[in-house]
């Protein structure tokens, strides 16, 4: 393996029903940023796609930063198969020798990337949250890949010095998409691939939709919790929660007043939770409530009373009326999500 032979930034394009997965667009954006960060490398951003898609989709890839798209075409490849994808991508990697290969850390990506990395006999770093070229060597294409470990308690910066391609999966929602530029026209290298002799021992028999299952607040990453201070306006909490991707919980006072069911009670006589974020709305912070949530990673508290004990355990406190702030927060997030990209 001669490292000098490897070049360019490759991005795996995940797609479904002729739509590009947001995560892949984010990776294209990141690849673009890396390219522009080290112009001396003169690297191209190359999108890699398997399956059968429309021309519009191929144009979109270019508009989102792909200098070239390697399109491995077969009408049976829209359905993911570990065997087929690994084989074909390995072949492509042998032929084209990418220096860097970025794959989204989706369920598909996390199935494919380790298999492919092992097939290519190279290293793989999972769940990157930050990428940068070697800051100590301005002409190097060595990637410094930062990622969380130990349940997010520790961050590590990983490098792969001896093997190529440098492969990493990247968390969806972390990198930035490139502003859409329809003026950009990339090159498309289409290849009709054959699946002859590649019998897949795994087959997909059925696809089922996910129901909305009963929520276990102890498993939620983000909780928006309401106390006496929100009265009967839990609908405002729900709206905000839906916008953020959070779950709703309540204090004992809220449960006693019938605003929310007992299953969602946090505290001494309810559940103990340790989410990444606990947003306490109109909750004073009595000892019995704290017992159930003070181990949360990050606590945001909103309360009218500046002396409310909840502020003593919060990472950040906002003095004010949660019923006024929450709808505005919902709006802020909606605006942010829908901002022109």
């Amino acid at each position: 393996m001669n490292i000098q032979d490897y070049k360019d930034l490759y991005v795996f394009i995940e797609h479904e029903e002729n739509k590009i997965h947001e995560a892949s667009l984010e990776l294209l954006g990141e690849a673009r940023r890396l390219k522009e960060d080290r112009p001396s490398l003169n690297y191209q951003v190359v999108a890699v796609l398997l399956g059968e898609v429309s021309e519009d989709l191929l144009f979109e890839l270019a508009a989102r930063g792909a200098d070239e798209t390697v399109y491995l075409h077969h009408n049976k490849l829209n359905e993911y198969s570990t065997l087929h994808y690994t084989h074909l991508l390995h072949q492509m990697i042998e032929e084209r020798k990418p220096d860097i290969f970025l794959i989204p850390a989706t369920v598909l990506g996390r199935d494919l990337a380790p298999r492919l990395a092992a097939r290519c006999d190279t290293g793989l770093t999972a769940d990157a949250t930050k990428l940068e070229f070697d800051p100590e060597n301005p002409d190097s294409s060595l990637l410094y890949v930062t990622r969380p470990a130990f349940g997010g308690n520790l961050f590590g910066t990983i490098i792969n010095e001896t093997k190529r391609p440098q492969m990493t999966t990247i968390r969806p929602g972390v990198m930035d998409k490139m502003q859409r530029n329809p003026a950009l026209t990339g090159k498309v290298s289409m290849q009709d691939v054959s699946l002859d002799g590649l019998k897949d021992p795994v087959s997909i028999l059925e696809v089922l939709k996910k129901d909305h299952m009963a929520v276990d607040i102890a498993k939620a990453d983000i909780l928006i919790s309401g106390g006496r201070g929100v009265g009967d306006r839990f609908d405002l909490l729900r709206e905000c929660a839906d916008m953020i991707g959070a779950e709703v919980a309540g204090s004992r006072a809220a449960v006693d007043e019938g605003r929310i069911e007992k299953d969602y009670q946090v505290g001494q006589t309810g559940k103990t939770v340790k989410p990444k974020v606990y947003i306490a709305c109109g909750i004073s912070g009595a000892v019995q409530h704290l017992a159930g949530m003070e181990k949360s990673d990050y606590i945001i508290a909103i309360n009218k009373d500046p002396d409310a004990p909840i502020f003593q355990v919060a990472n950040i406190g906002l003095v004010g009326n949660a019923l006024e702030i929450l709808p505005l927060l919902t709006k802020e997030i909606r605006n942010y999500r829908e901002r022109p990209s």
Partner: protein
Amino acid sequence: MMNIVVLLKQVPDTTEMKIDKEKGTLIRAGVPTITNPDDLAGLEAALQIKDRQGAKVTCVTMGPPQAESMLRELYALGADECVLISDGKFGGADTWATSNTLGAYLATIPYDLIIAGRQAIDGDTAQVGPQTAEKLNLPQITYVDEILSISEEKIRVRKALENRYEILESEMPCLITTLSSIAKPRYMHVREIMKAFDKPVTVITNEHLQLEQKDIGLKGSPTKVKKTFTKEVHKNSDVLTLEPKLAAAKILDVLLENQFIGK
């Protein structure tokens, strides 16, 4: 009789970890060790198959000598055989080197199904399962949250994706990675605890596997850790009095800055 091999890892309980703010490192001393939850759930799934239709369940772990304590617990849960792959030469391995080592051992024993947990709570990579499957040239199915049926010819499972489930079938032998939701682990049985410490634990070293230094341990790891650091968490709160609109904007900032919500 069906042979099921379960791969398990002894890990620190990361929910109980504390951070040394001065050194920017984790305080590992005094943190209890547990069996990785995804792996334990996978073992429970294997034990349920054993209860229902009969099977031999072998537990394999790669780790330092203290991992033996975990194997005793696995005996108390109902494992039939426990193997510890341990050698100073295997230390410092990344997932590639780990899979190499595991694969080399597994290639020497009979199996129909290999179960690995989806990911370990310390490394959080979810790579060892698929990489071991690659070394053994086995079909893989990841993110399994239910085993629907299993025989020596085929296995049928449910896979949980982000927005849907898929029912997949694979020829055997194969490797699956399991989510912790696949099964609620049982408690140890007191009678089995009494017997657990008298059962043999097979220890496999590099004497047995004869792997080359370049393929194992730190030397065999293509990825290396350049540095580690911890995240700053302030616990003395800023209490701000802001107009509602500004308060909302501030909360959004906090959520984005800390990457609590995606972009």
